[in-house]
């Protein structure tokens, strides 16, 4: 009922009424859809005069197609989806995002059998494996599969998913080639020259697919890594936090056409989502247990509450019983998590180039242009300023909008110790030993 008391302050601030009041937003059953569920359950959407219906989608492709053809007003998306769609990898359509949904939140899990083979190559301390576990430990296992002529199959959730790039990053850092794409030749399987063959499996089916032996491991968001531990079918070896500390993950995407037609609605949606993200991180994650209960409802994530709680409340269970604190496993608001940084967009574009999804060399300018076309910090800034004026948020939770240029300072904390500077994408690509760079084409 707290939403009713906030009503007067939020909705009636000024005359920028929403152009469209009834909205349908899509999501995939993953814990990082939390801002949407919280904005709904806590009445933040209604405070903005928006009547939102949330609907789970079958997979990322269906979700994107339905945003493009207008069946959905907006959706929880993989950060690579608006970028991929806009540059025409997969379905071509101009999608924009003004809200980044979270940082981190993924993990890589391998089956029990692979784990047993990997474990011999991992240094131990006090009887426990030393983390982070690099793919170097997986390399001999993959080599033995190749020697026996058996394909080493792994799963990820979508060709332009964070998970695909993270899994590739981790494998390549351990000298395992994850394969190239060659869309100009019609090859979008991403398995050219591959030592580990990656293929798409929808997140909720990951554990079942691994159990069936179709894949030996996967990279996916929560709760599907913890699910594997819980069911005793696999072992998470690394979280994406350890592959790249505080990596941007999901975004809230809408079509450009929709955004142009409904600027006030869009701003109000972002306002509601910012408030939800703030709630999720407030007081050192104090609201997380309540969030877990909400997410466990069958219409949202629907997995068992104790599985969701494992990662949402700051711990992560690797091998059964090996629970370690990962306080930032899911970050929804702090570290400016919701601000759509151009540099985040450019990192995804560099990975698309690295693995051949972008088949030719592009100048640095091209990367900046695409980032500006897709990422819309201007809309985010308006929404945040409205919230500050209404007294619902404080300015120190946001970057300084007057001076912010949209580029994070050069980022370290990658598993291979390579520094990422968003202002020099081509120079960044040169640093990788595996991957396309310069003028290379396939």
């Amino acid at each position, binding site marked *: 009922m707290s939403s009713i008391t906030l009503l007067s302050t939020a909705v009636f601030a000024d005359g920028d*009424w929403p152009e469209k009041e009834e909205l349908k937003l899509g999501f995939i*059953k993953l814990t990082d859809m939390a801002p949407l569920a919280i904005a709904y359950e806590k009445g933040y959407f209604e405070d903005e005069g928006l*009547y939102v219906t*949330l609907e*789970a989608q*079958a997979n990322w492709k269906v979700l994107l197609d339905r945003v493009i*053809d207008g*069946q959905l007003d907006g959706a929880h998306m993989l950060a690579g989806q608006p970028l991929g769609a806009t540059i025409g990898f997969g379905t071509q359509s101009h999608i924009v995002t003004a809200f980044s949904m979270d940082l981190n939140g993924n993990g890589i899990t391998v089956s029990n059998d692979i784990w047993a083979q990997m474990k011999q190559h991992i240094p131990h301390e006090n009887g426990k494996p030393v983390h982070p576990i690099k793919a170097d430990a997986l390399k001999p296992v993959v080599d033995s599969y190749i020697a026996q002529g058996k394909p080493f199959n792994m799963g990820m959730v979508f060709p332009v998913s964070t998970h695909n790039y993270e899994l590739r990053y981790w494998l390549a850092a351990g000298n395992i080639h994850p394969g190239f794409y060659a869309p100009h030749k019609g090859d979008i399987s991403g398995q050219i020259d591959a030592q580990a063959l990656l293929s798409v499996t929808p997140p909720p089916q990951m554990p*079942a697919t691994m159990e069936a032996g179709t894949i030996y491991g996967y990279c996916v968001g929560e709760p599907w890594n913890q699910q594997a531990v819980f069911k005793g079918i696999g072992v998470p070896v690394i979280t994406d936090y350890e592959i790249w500390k505080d990596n941007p993950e999901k975004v809230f995407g809408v079509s450009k056409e929709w955004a142009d037609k409904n600027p006030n609605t869009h701003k109000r949606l972002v306002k509601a989502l910012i408030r939800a993200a703030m709630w999720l991180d407030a007081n050192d994650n104090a609201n997380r247990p309540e969030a877990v209960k909400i997410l466990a409802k069958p*219409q949202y994530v629907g997995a068992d509450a104790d599985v969701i709680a494992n990662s949402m409340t700051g711990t992560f269970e690797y091998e059964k019983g090996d629970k370690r604190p990962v306080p930032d496993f899911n970050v929804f608001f702090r570290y400016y998590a919701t601000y759509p940084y151009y540099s985040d967009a450019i990192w995804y574009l560099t990975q698309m180039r690295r693995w051949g999804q972008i088949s030719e060399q592009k100048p640095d300018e091209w990367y900046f242009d695409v980032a500006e076309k897709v990422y819309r910090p201007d809309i985010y800034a308006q929404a945040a300023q409205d919230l500050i004026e209404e007294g619902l948020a404080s300015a120190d939770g946001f970057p300084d909008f007057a001076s912010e240029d949209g580029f994070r300072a050069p980022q370290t904390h990658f598993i291979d110790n390579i520094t990422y500077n968003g202002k020099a994408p081509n120079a960044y690509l040169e640093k990788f030993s595996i991957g396309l760079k310069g003028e290379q084409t396939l």
Partner: protein
Amino acid sequence: MSKTASLQKVTFLKLPEPLVNSIWLLKLKGALLPLIGLAIFMVLWNITAKNIDTSLGQFPGPVQVYEQSINLWNEHQAEQEKAAAFYERQEQRNAKRMAADPSYQPKIRPYTGAPTFFEQIWTSLYTVSVGFLIASFIAVPVGILGGLSKSAYAAINPLIQLFKPVSPLAWLPLVTMVVSAVYVSDDPMFSKSFLTSAFTVALCCLWPTLINTAVGVSSIPEDLVNVSKVLRLSAMSHVLKIVLPSSIPMIFTGLRLSLGIGWMVLIAAEMLAQNPGLGKFVWDEFQNGSSESLARIMVAVLVIGAIGFFLDRLMLLVQRKVSWDKSQNLR
């Protein structure tokens, strides 16, 4: 006929008692045997379920399924309460907005919460009816045409044979794309997922009605056709007065088969088209992967079966009503 035959056998072989007694026994048997079958099934189900361990926990037995059906009902009730609160809040909001912005046209929007299991049942029934009606409106006239004219039938027949065995899963991507391309509207009356599911159902359940109608029409007794000729009935009255009445039993046999297929197809179509009916319920629960999911899916399986059975009985009733040949053994 068959009943009395078996009756004689029974009395002759086993029970040389008065006939009245045997009839009573038969009635008892009629009620008892299904119950015995059900009981055996329940016991087997229970035993088998206890021995199947899935990655989502033990396979649900009758007890867990019963618990989940109660759970689904409670969730439905809770959602009704939330809906009431939603409408209350909405009225307050509308009033405030009216005060701030007099030009605003207040509007009561439908509840935005997730559809409950029982609402999903209605969506499914509605979708299958629409698909079935579309199919019937196409199949009956085309079937009549094919039955009346041998050349028309020869022309349609290859198409029927070609499309009849096509799975809904093959149609669905095509239908989805066509609906998205053709049905463009700012204020759509139907959601695309609904249309996609309904059309897929229609495409798959068209064929039994079509074939049965054609066969029914072509096998009208020669005498009736001659009567029509003697009376010099116009083509329209020939169809209405002679063809339809005499082929109605066959048409309804076709319709009944069609509805059965339609209901089966619908669940698959809803899963993929994301139409918020029972198919989506099953898919979503599968994706949830909670320890309760399998039991909830099992509830849906039983409900889907029960509704399919009910729809079939309904069509059977109608079929009996319209069939003039009461001696026909319909089951």
